[in-house]
């Protein structure tokens, strides 16, 4: 991956200034430490910071066509570039590099906007047609690679990270509407970001500027079919098809001119990827993992099982409570958004290890849970739908006890409270976000800490309504399971897992993540499966296990799905508490920044210091408040001290 940035002069705007362009690129050096390149004419400036992975000698950007009419900057990888290059050569295209970037440009020249449908990869791309003064920007289908923009009357600014845009424009204010969305769905609803005026180009979308007009359209969508067949006589055939698809998706993600490693969490998904690398490729298996001081969260036993079984050359890093506190501010600088749990911090430490070991690329198991039905929220939704069909049943809600057994303080301990918690919305099973109501209502409890001024700013805002209007009508016709998959992929996965916990934590240490489960062919295969192939009874990822289970130790396949977690409050409030924690949560700062109620924050801290905050809700409130305060501190108060000039 790399960093891209640029700005386009609109009708009455000033001509692009190389100094500003350089300032924008300077904020993205961590994304591309191996080189920088610029293109400037009287209308546009393009900048690129390079992490060199393919065509180390010839791949410097911006890249242009033979006549220097078209110019491109690109962040990402096109995994089918070898085949696509040959197709273009056969059609008469000429190449001066061996990079995937030039393949994109030639594909655009040949197919115009349809070029994007030819790409199998992860990308944000900007292509400038100097003759027609036309700018095309595209982002990959699911949101692996970021791309942000800000539009004013004079200019369009765009960049891989928001800080690059803020450095150029100087306009920095937190977006309270997006904060409210994040305090509901864990991420702003695309295209909103945490900063006023800055939008993201939504995953699967294409942006075109031509003749002074901007047109943004969707070119790809998570798409499900309610009529998929549930014929179990075809289960072996489908399992074989999936195995072949996943193997190919992994193999093409090993294409690289630098060595490629893999994350190994101890869970099913990364085990599948590492096993494919071991068994189906010539790539030596180099793996990396994180371990925790907190035994309840540590998965090193399962990791070791895999390391022994695959004979992997493995490195791990141990994360203590204090490591999380020490790395937290730097993490928020990169997430550019509040976080409701500390989980991104260890992921940033892990990519640091990968970087120190001399690796630039890792494969991970991200996406399997969304595509093949692995999360407990799908189970939860299935049980609640079953219960909703007979609300008076005493037996049906007993199934709720099957949920979340890995939590120390599981909601499953007291049945009557469990029913109350998961019974939210039980009368409205047709509501488009029925599956996610319990989670979102719990998350929304953070809003009880809002200050009066925040409440005032949000008095006409309802985040649930904003999501409802964001969901296309056809999604409302999906069955409950598919709707849950759609919502999970479009909110938590693209907005948080691939962003704050994904790209930003990898790229802060110049490491590129590659995700075979998010190959669009794998997603489309998964979307075409009947829900029963994903969750059979309450067995999650049924077909995936059937397809790939034989490659893995039985203990890994049979293991109860345990999501990746890291310690929250315990990392910050302890005997070695760091000064910034009490400072950011002090009455003075809370009042000065104005987002939260001073008194309520004080009582939350009192509860935490008394050791009484044991639940999910208090942990999330603490993380949400601390990270919002940190975001303000870093981006509003101290921005000019942090940026690279």
């Amino acid at each position, binding site marked *: 991956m790399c960093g891209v940035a640029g700005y386009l002069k609109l009708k009455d705007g000033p001509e692009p200034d190389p100094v500003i362009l350089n300032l924008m690129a300077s904020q993205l050096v961590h994304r591309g430490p191996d080189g920088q390149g610029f293109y400037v004419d009287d209308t546009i400036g393009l900048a690129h910071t390079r992490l060199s992975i393919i065509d180390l000698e010839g791949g410097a950007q911006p890249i242009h066509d033979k006549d220097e009419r078209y110019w491109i900057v690109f962040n990402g990888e096109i995994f089918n570039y070898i085949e696509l290059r040959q197709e273009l050569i056969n059609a008469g295209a000429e190449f001066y590099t061996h990079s995937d970037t030039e393949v994109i440009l030639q594909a655009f020249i040949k197919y115009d906007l349809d070029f994007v449908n030819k790409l199998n990869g992860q990308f944000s791309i900007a292509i400038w047609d100097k003759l027609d003064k036309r700018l095309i920007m595209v982002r990959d289908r699911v949101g692996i690679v970021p791309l942000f923009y800000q539009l004013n009357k004079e200019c369009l600014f765009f960049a891989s990270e928001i800080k690059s845009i803020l450095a150029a424009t100087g306009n920095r204010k937190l977006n309270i509407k997006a904060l409210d969305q994040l305090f509901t769905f864990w991420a702003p609803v695309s295209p909103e970001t945490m900063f006023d005026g800055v939008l993201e180009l939504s995953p699967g979308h294409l942006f075109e500027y031509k003749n002074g007009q901007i047109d943004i359209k969707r070119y790809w969508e998570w798409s499900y079919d309610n009529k998929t067949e549930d014929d179990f006589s075809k289960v072996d055939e489908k399992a074989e098809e999936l195995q072949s698809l996943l193997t190919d998706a992994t193999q093409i993600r090993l294409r690289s001119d630098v060595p490629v490693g893999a994350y190994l969490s101890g869970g099913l998904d990364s085990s599948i990827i590492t096993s494919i690398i071991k068994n189906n490729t010539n790539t030596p298996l180099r793996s990396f993992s994180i371990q925790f001081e907190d035994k309840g969260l540590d998965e090193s036993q399962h990791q070791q099982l895999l390391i022994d079984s695959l004979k992997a050359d493995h490195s791990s890093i141990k994360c203590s409570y204090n490591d999380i506190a020490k790395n937290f501010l730097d993490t928020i600088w990169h997430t550019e958004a509040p976080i409701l749990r500390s989980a991104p911090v260890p992921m940033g430490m892990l990519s640091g290890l990968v970087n120190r070991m001399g690796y630039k690329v890792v494969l991970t198991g991200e996406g399997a849970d969304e595509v093949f039905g692995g999360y407990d929220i799908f189970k939860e939704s299935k049980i609640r739908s079953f219960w909703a069909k007979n609300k008076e049943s005493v037996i049906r809600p007993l199934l709720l006890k099957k949920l979340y057994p890995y939590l120390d*303080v599981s*909601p*499953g*301990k*007291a049945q*009557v*409270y*469990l029913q*109350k*918690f998961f019974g939210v919305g039980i009368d409205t099973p047709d509501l488009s976000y029925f599956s996610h109501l319990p989670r979102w*209502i*719990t998350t929304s*409890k953070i809003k*009880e*800490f809002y200050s009066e001024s925040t409440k005032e700013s949000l008095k006409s805002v309802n985040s649930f309504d904003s999501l409802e209007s964001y969901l296309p009508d056809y999604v409302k016709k999906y069955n409950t399971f598919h709707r849950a998959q759609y919502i999970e992929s479009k909110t938590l996965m693209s907005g948080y897992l691939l962003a704050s916990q994904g790209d930003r934590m990898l790229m802060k240490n110049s490491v590129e993540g590659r995700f075979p489960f998010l190959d669009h062919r794998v997603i489309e295969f998964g979307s075409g499966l009947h829900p029963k192939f994903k969750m059979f009874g309450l067995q999650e990822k049924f077909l995936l296990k059937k397809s790939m289970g034989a490659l893995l130790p039985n203990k890994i396949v049979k293991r109860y799905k345990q999501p990746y977690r890291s310690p929250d409050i315990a990392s910050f409030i302890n005997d070695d508490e760091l000064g910034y924690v009490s400072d950011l949560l002090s009455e003075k700062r809370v009042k000065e920044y104005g987002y939260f*109620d001073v*008194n*309520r*924050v004080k*009582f*939350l801290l*009192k*509860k935490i210091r008394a050791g*009484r905050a*044991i*639940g*999910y*809700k208090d942990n999330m409130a603490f993380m949400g408040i601390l990270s919002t305060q940190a975001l303000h501190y870093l981006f509003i108060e101290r921005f000019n001290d942090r940026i690279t000039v």
Partner: protein
Amino acid sequence: MSAEMELRSYVLENYLFTDDQSQLNNEDSFMDKGIVDSTGILEIITFIEDEYDISVEDSEMIPENLDSINNLVKYLEKKKA
């Protein structure tokens, strides 16, 4: 301080994060008002077990005993009797 006042103060400070007495009526249902969720009720149980030296049995973890200040006070009186 009476058990009622102690419990009010505990619930106000730890679940509503305020000392404003007007925010909680003694008959308010913790569940219906969204004051506590299933993990919150486990915290309340831990609190009353520690403060009043009692043991809450599984069969006693029901709203009739735990779901309002009034219910808690009555339950504690019964346990202490």
